[in-house]
């Protein structure tokens, strides 16, 4: 308050990088009005939408506000894509998952960091040849967990020497007579 006319009337704004502030009429609360890039909050202590960090070290060591890092798996047109404090990604796309959208969702496999659109493909395990849950496959190779003598990424084929893939049973031995078989 500059109206009382003493030397301590005007005090510097409690805002980083000497940015501006204003006093809320009524409550008298001082709020920063022009926080540095990527920051918001009464004292610029929170990271802006699209940024994450802890610039004034409110919960641990101070970390500057950096753009959300979601491995290219969020839409640039979306808002609120990561947690302002932890940076955990909240809107992963293309069936990706993880704090940085860095791996494929459960029941999908592939490399979430690829640039192509179908980076994460559905496990689609064959119900006839799969032992256990159909939505479980190796996250990188997509190999489903097959019943005995069943093969193929999705457990849809019988191994050599086996036939008749039947649900829950797997495949049967061919039982060919060695005398008349060519292999």
């Amino acid at each position: 308050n500059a109206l009382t006319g003493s030397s301590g009337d005007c005090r510097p704004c409690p805002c980083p990088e000497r940015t501006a502030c204003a006093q809320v009429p009524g409550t008298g609360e001082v709020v920063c009005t022009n926080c540095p890039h990527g920051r918001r909050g009464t004292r610029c202590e929170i990271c802006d939408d699209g940024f994450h960090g802890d610039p004034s070290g409110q919960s641990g060591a101070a970390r500057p506000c950096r753009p959300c890092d979601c491995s290219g798996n969020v839409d640039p047109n979306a808002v609120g894509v990561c947690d302002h404090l932890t940076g955990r990604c909240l809107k992963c796309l293309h069936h990706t998952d993880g704090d940085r959208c860095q791996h494929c969702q459960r029941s999908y496999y592939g490399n979430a960091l690829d640039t192509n659109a179908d980076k994460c493909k559905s496990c689609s395990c064959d119900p006839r040849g799969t032992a256990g849950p159909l939505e479980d496959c190796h996250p990188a190779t997509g190999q489903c967990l097959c019943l005995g003598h069943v093969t193929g990424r999705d457990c849809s084929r019988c191994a050599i020497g086996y036939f008749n893939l039947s649900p829950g049973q797997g495949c049967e031995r061919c039982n060919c007579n060695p005398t008349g078989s060519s292999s």
Partner: protein
Amino acid sequence: RPTPRPDVTPLSPGTHLLFAQSGKIEHIPLDGQSMKKSEAKTLLHLPDKVVIAVAYDCVEKMVYWTDITGPSISKASIQGGEPITIIRTDLESPEGIAIDHLGRTMFWTDSMRDHIEVASLDGSQRRVLFDTDLVNPRPIIADPAHGHLYWADWNRDAPKIETSYMDGTNRRALVTDNLGLPNGLTYDPQTSLLCWADAGTRKVECMNPSRSDRRKVMEGIQYPFAVAAYGRNLYYTDWRRDAVIAVDRAVGRETEEYLPQKRSRLYGITTAYAQCPSGQNYCTVN
């Protein structure tokens, strides 16, 4: 150096633009069609919020907004006063809000729950209006005089602008061709024009919804997020320019630009009319 800027100022009479920048809602008085930029001020400081959508109730002179950090929907009088939170549960990413000043209801979009919901202005009588065929619904607009609702979905695979009656019946797609990212939508009750700003096609387009006479107003714009109509002008916020830009709808030309002191993304924008647009409630007619 402290800035002796009186903030959280009650709005003077007349028509204003209200727009959101994270952590605050700003206002610019309008003098006819031009922005009184020197009188632009912060209406509300909400330092711990990320305000996305804003809407105005011309009857009680309240501003309504959605915040994606809560997430929540709140309101405050433009004459000053404490914000009141009206919806705080079952929200994920509320990115659009519309007020039916005649029916005293509000509508909002949620782009994570993929819902459009409705409630009374105090938050009571909440119900889901739509929960199907929505991917990234964002702007929503009400035309209370005719009982129509309009919204856009920026789904990258099939963007669209849809309409329905305000009770949720008669839902249909209004525009599906040649859309990219229709982030902004506005309706001018004076001219019955529905206009949208598209960050994908980088165009502003308008149509009379009952005539399907779609026409281009401007092209080659940068990155619009929201748009509001007033008189012959459209005002849109832009993510690349961090500005409010005025466009003369009739001649399809940019006329003015407002750059806030803080350089960061601007979100929703709305017109705070000095008086409510004339029009009878469709319910009182039926």
